[in-house]
Structures are given as structure tokens and as C-alpha cells.
């Protein structure tokens, strides 16, 4: 069973520079929450802050009621946070099986993972380096899922993948949410993500400038486009759409 991911007014800095400024967001359990924005908007930095790759400068991150922003990264993983980083971070010198073994939580087996990714089963003994790009992305997702997460963060899964593969993988994100996991999906390509998400937020220059349900935003692509391009001045007036749920 998942927990809600609650982010309250967090600021994340890279060096001296605040890249994420005062962002609040909730990714409810069982739903896919989409995070959009152009290059440099701060999406990856936000995920880095949530997962502990970068310490949060201020604000809080909670899994359910439990604040986790002061915990070490492996402690957060133990609490149920899984982070699929950008760039397919497989352990290239380990076999597929070893990649999964490092992540798997006690009591969990690989059945679910093989159900979703049957391609991995015959490749258990193959070194991860030998897999194709699409298979590597599957491995990374499978690895996250066998860690029995309550919250799943995914950063730009589609980058560098053939479109036919991306179409294969996106529904799996929905399946994960259906199991009760809170999914926060960061994507560059708005249409892809909005097609499978429940709610979405658009970030620009470190803050959230637009929020709403995915269906609504799909009907307002001009606003989404403008939000992608908004500069600092527009960050002052954020727009919130009354949501229907």
C-alpha cells in the first residue's frame, strides 16, 4: 500500500543558487502526478531534493505523516521511496538478476516484475551493459518496483528511447499507481505524460506556475506552452485551476 508524498514549501539549492524555490506539491497514493516544465525549470532538482541526492535547504518532505527530509538516502529508501533517475542508471557490470537483487526488499519476489517486463526473465544472467536502451529502462523500472515502494519518482523515462518503446513503458507507470503507489512522473513531453496522468503541475524557473487535472491541461495546451516559456515575472502570479478531482 502506498503513502501520499507531501512536499511543503521546499527550497533546493545547487551550490549557492536556489534552483527550486518554495515549491509545494502533493502526489497522492494510487495516482500518477505529472510534473512538467522546460529544461532548467528545476524538475530534476526537485526530485533530487525529495530523494536526498541534494539536501533540502528549507521546507519538508513527508511520506504519509512521516517527515523524511533529514534522513539519509538509504533510510528514505527503506521507508519506501524509490527514485528512477534520469539516464538509465543500471549497474552495468552486474547481471540483470544482481541488479534486482541489490534492490529487492525482504519478502518481495520478482514475479510482479516479470509480469510487467517479461523481456527480463530470459535475460537474468546477462550483464546489464549488454541490454538495449529500452531493456535497460525496463530494468531500472523493475528494480524500483521490486523494492516495494510506497512512492515512486521517475525522471524523464522517455529520453533517448525509441518512441515505440516509450509507448510500451508508459502504461506500466499507470499499473504501478493502480497498485497503490504514489507516482511522481517528470517529463519533458507534455502530451505523453498528460495522457496517462491524473494531476499535473508545470514548473518554470524553480516554482510551480500552473496546476490542474491532466484532462483540463490537455484542453489548455496554449496555457501549458506559455507556462513553459514563462520567465521570472510570471512566477509571481501562479494560476491554480479549481479542480474537479
Amino acid at each position, binding site marked *: 500500500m502506498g503513502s501520499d508524498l507531501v512536499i511543503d514549501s521546499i527550497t533546493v539549492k545547487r551550490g549557492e543558487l536556489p534552483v527550486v524555490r518554495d515549491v509545494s506539491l502533493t502526489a497522492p497514493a494510487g495516482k500518477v502526478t505529472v510534473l512538467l516544465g*522546460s529544461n532548467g525549470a528545476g524538475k530534476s532538482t526537485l526530485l533530487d531534493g525529495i530523494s536526498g541526492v541534494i539536501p533540502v535547504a528549507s521546507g519538508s518532505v513527508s511520506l504519509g505523516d512521516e517527515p523524511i527530509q533529514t534522513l539519509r538516502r538509504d533510510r528514505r529508501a527503506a521507508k519506501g521511496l524509490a527514485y528512477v533517475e534520469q539516464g538509465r542508471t543500471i549497474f552495468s557490470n552486474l547481471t540483470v538478476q544482481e541488479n534486482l537483487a541489490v534492490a529487492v526488499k525482504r519478502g518481495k519476489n520478482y514475479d510482479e516484475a516479470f509480469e510487467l517486463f517479461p523481456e527480463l526473465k530470459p535475460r537474468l544472467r546477462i550483464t546489464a551493459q549488454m541490454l538495449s536502451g529500452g531493456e535497460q529502462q525496463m530494468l531500472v523500472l523493475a528494480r524500483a518496483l521490486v523494492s516495494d515502494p510506497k512512492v515512486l519518482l521517475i525522471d524523464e523515462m522517455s529520453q*533517448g*528511447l525509441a518512441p515505440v518503446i516509450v509507448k510500451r513503458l508508459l502504461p506500466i507507470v499507470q499499473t504501478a499507481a493502480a497498485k497503490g503507489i504514489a507516482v511522481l512522473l517528470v517529463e519533458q513531453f507534455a*502530451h505523453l505524460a498528460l495522457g496517462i496522468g491524473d494531476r499535473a503541475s508545470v514548473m518554470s524557473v524553480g516554482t510551480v506556475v500552473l496546476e490542474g487535472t491532466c484532462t483540463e491541461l490537455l484542453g489548455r495546451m496554449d496555457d501549458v506552452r506559455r507556462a513553459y516559456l514563462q520567465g521570472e515575472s510570471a512566477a509571481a502570479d501562479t494560476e491554480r485551476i479549481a479542480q474537479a478531482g
Partner: protein
Amino acid sequence: MSGLRRGSIPSLLTLMGVMLVLVAVVYPAPKYWQYVATVGLIQAAIGLSIGVVYGSAGMLSLCQVSLAAVGSWTVGYLSGQSGIIPAPWSIPFGALLAVPIGLLVGLPAMRLRGVNLAIVTLGFAVAIYSVGEAGEVPGSSPTFFVSLPAWLSGKGMWFLFVWASFLGLAAAVIVLRRSRWGLTWLAIARSERAAASMGVSVFRTKLTAFGVSAFIAGWAGGMLVATIGSPDPGTFSPLECLSFFVLAVMMGAGYWEGALALGFFNAVSSALLRQWNLPPEIGSLLFAVGSVQVLSAGHGGFSGDVRRLINRRRRRDEHVVTLRSRDASAPAIARTDGPPPAIDIGSGLQFRDLTVKYGAVTALDSVTISVPERSIVGLVGPNGAGKSTLVDAASGFIPSYTGNIMVDGRSLDGMPVHHRARLLRRTFQSDRTVGELNPGDYLRLSAVKAVTIAEIGEILDFVGCPATRTRLDQLDVRTRRLLMIGSCLVGQPKVALIDEPAAGLSADESEDLGLRLLDIPERFGAAVLVIEHDMELVRLVCPTVAVLDFGKLIAFGPTAAVLDDPQVQAAYLGDELVVPA
């Protein structure tokens, strides 16, 4: 490419100022403190030497202190043992003799990098140390004395000599760092492959770094033996080499002020230890704790931190660089249907039956693609299809392949990477610009031969980046990406290979990029091969496209036709992927 550049002058003035303060304080001081200051300046000079080879050129050479030993022995022999050339005239000889030895040490650096090089140079330091201990090499045994001539023995005169030496060496380093040599040092420190693709001879660059560094170290060693009177092998022990290196990293000796700080710190701390009658072990322990502390905190060392503070203040005054939009009056004809490609052409870029194998894996299988001059061809395909291998083969990073790669009918076989750069330029998927440089210097570096301000301005205009003094690592990703493309064009190549330029860019940024790419053939006379996953960009920019899958060419023709081909769709596209317009 020589001569003082505007950018050197502030540094030179600051150096002069600091050195004047130093001489004003030390010259009237008692002899003991002059001695301390003298030794400190010599150590600062050794720090400069490490700063050149590691701070600027990024090579982990742990044996610069040993090269100082060579200078010491030379002076010891010439002025002490045999008396042929009296000090201080023997000092330049010591510096010059250290150069070929330093170049010899540089040779392993052609094939070894990082910690591997560190190990080899440490071994060299131990070898030199054992030579020094044996005392058989002329000038290395402590049985004679190097004395100073009368005119240098007077009050403060030797200190002034050492002071002037450091001033000269530091000024030379400042000027060199801004010169072509310095730009190439910084370039290879960042990425050897990118530097070579820009026409930089990595071999020559490493040699100049080792050569200059050895000269400085040799000069310092000569001064040291003249100061102490006779060589002391203990000063060049491996432990000293290692400690010195770490100090240089901590202080950021790539910059002259870091080297000076190193000398100052060393001199003052050992003087204080002596004053307070503390055992040397205390000094060692303090160094140990201090080094761990400083290393865990920073990057670029102490002077790197100082420079960053100064830069931060300056940056607040400059506005954030934004991309100017493309000139709207020039119409963009997005051709999506070109003529069918000719197979054999006499101009432009031609791959013929190119096959690359890594052991059992065939990365490219008999690929034939032609990019006619002044045209744009796209290259698409799933990850692992061999696109990057194709570009690497063209650049010269793949040692063995079968088939032909030709530019304007001339085969590239056997041409080293930096020679190919005259004909063929490429970008990289990851950011390989040289962060310490500003856009103008970066383009100057890439031009290889002399280039006018107007030509640099032309590129900056094409890229949409104003001429700014801001360092590249403080500009945004999109500007750096475009500058990397611009650096290809400043060399007036026949062919430009552009590798996934739109990765991570938004739809609008991609379109802006695409429109700029369209201008390249007309404006710069180059043939362009664009590798991309972004189909919108490919349709906009490329009239012809080639599709690779598992190393094989599965389609090559007019873009619309190819992308509609069911075989291509099945392998790669799925159904039409909608990207926000």
C-alpha cells in the same frame, strides 16, 4: 596568438601589487624572516609548477618536486662542485636541464591518465629520490657548498633575486594561461576527445604543460640549493612530493595567488613551529587534519573559493544571457522532401561500407551514407543502433574499421583526430565545453588558426549569444549547447556532425535550434549530419534522412517517405508520436 591579452592585465596588476607589499614588508625585516620569506617564495614557485601541470592541464603529476631536484643538482654541480658557472647564472641552466627530464616524465602521460599517471609519477619521484640519496650523480652529494657572489650576499639582495624570480615566473604563467598554450591546457583538462576534435594536438599540449612546469620547478630547485648552500636529499622525498601536491590542490595553485598562498602558509607554519619549539610531528598532524578538512569542503581549493566569491559579485551586475531570437525577416524554407540521395559523390561526407566490430559485437555493418556538400542529412535510429559509433569513426576515435570515410573525395584513413578537425567537426552528447573560458576565448580555441574579432562575432551572432566575459560554466545549458555547435563552425569545416543537439530542450527551443541549423550550409558552406531522436526537428531541418537499426542502414532517402515507411515505423517509431508543437 601571442602578446598580452586584455584579460591578463588585471591579474598582472594584482600580482605586482601583492609583490610590492611583500617586498615592502620583508626587505627591512631581520635576516631570519628574510630567509623564511625566501624559502616560502621558492616553495611558491614549486606550487606554480604543480599549478601548470595539474591546476591548468589537469594531469596528476606527483613528481614536480623531484624536477626541482634536477635543478638543484645542476646548480650544485655547476656552481658548487665544479665552479664552472657561478650562482645565480647557473640557475637558468638548471631550469633548462629540468625540461627534457620533465618531458620524459610527460611521455607516460600520453597513454596514462588520472590515478594511473599519479602512480607512475610517484614511482619516478621515488626513483629520483634514490638517485639523490646515492649521491653519485654530479651535483647531488652534499659534500660541497654553493656560495653566492658578493653582490648578492648583501642585505636582502638574495631575497630580492628570489622575489624577482617568482614575480617573473608568476607573470609568465598568467600570460601563458591566456595564450593559446593555456587555452589548450584547460581544454585537455576538461576533455581530451573534445579538444582533439577541435583541432588541438593533445600530444603537443601535454608536452608544453610538462615542459613549462619542469622549467619552473627546475628554477625553483636551483634557487633552493643556492639558498641552503648544499643539496639536502630529504627535501625531495616522496612524502614531500605527496604533501606538496596535496597542499597545491588545497590552495588552488593553478592560480598564482594559490601558489603564493601555498608558499606563505608553508613558510609561516614551519617558522612558527620552530619558534614555539614544537616537534615536527605536530606540524605533520596539523597538516593531516587540515588537509582532510579542506579537501572535504571545497573544489578548486582556497583560491578557487576566493575567485568564485569575486565572480559572484561580478555576476550580479551582468544580466542573465538570453538567446536572441532568430532574425524573423529571413524566411525558413523547411524542405521535407529532397531529391533521392546519390550514392557516390565527390564532395561532402561519404561513408562507404563502413564496418566496425568490437570483438564479437558488430556496431556498424557495411553502412553507406553520403552527405553532399552544403546539404543537411538526418541520422536517426534507436539507442545502440550505432549512430555515435558512426560519428566516433568519422572523428577518428575508432582505431580499426573496414570501409571508407571520405571528405571531398579525400580518405580520412590514418589521419589523426586533430588533423581531421580541419575538415570535419563534431559536437558531443554531453557538455564538453571548457567551463573556465568565456565564449570568445572558447571560439578562439576552436579556431586553431588566427581568427578575427569579426569572425568570432559572426559565430556569436549566429548562435545568438552576446559577447560576454562570463565564464561558460555560468551560462545556461542551451547557450553552451549552441556554443558547442558554433565552435564547430568557426573552423570553417567542410562537414559538421551534430550529435543530439535537441536533447533536453523544450519544443520551442528545439524549433529555434532547428531554424539556426537550417542556415548553416548557406552561411558557413558546410555539409551537416544531424543525429536526433526528435522527429519534429528532423522533419524541419533534414530533407534526407538515414535510419540505422542494430548497426545496419535500413533506410536512406527523402524524409517524409522514410518516416512513413512501415518497416521504419515498426523498428523505431511505433505510430506517429505527437510532440507538443
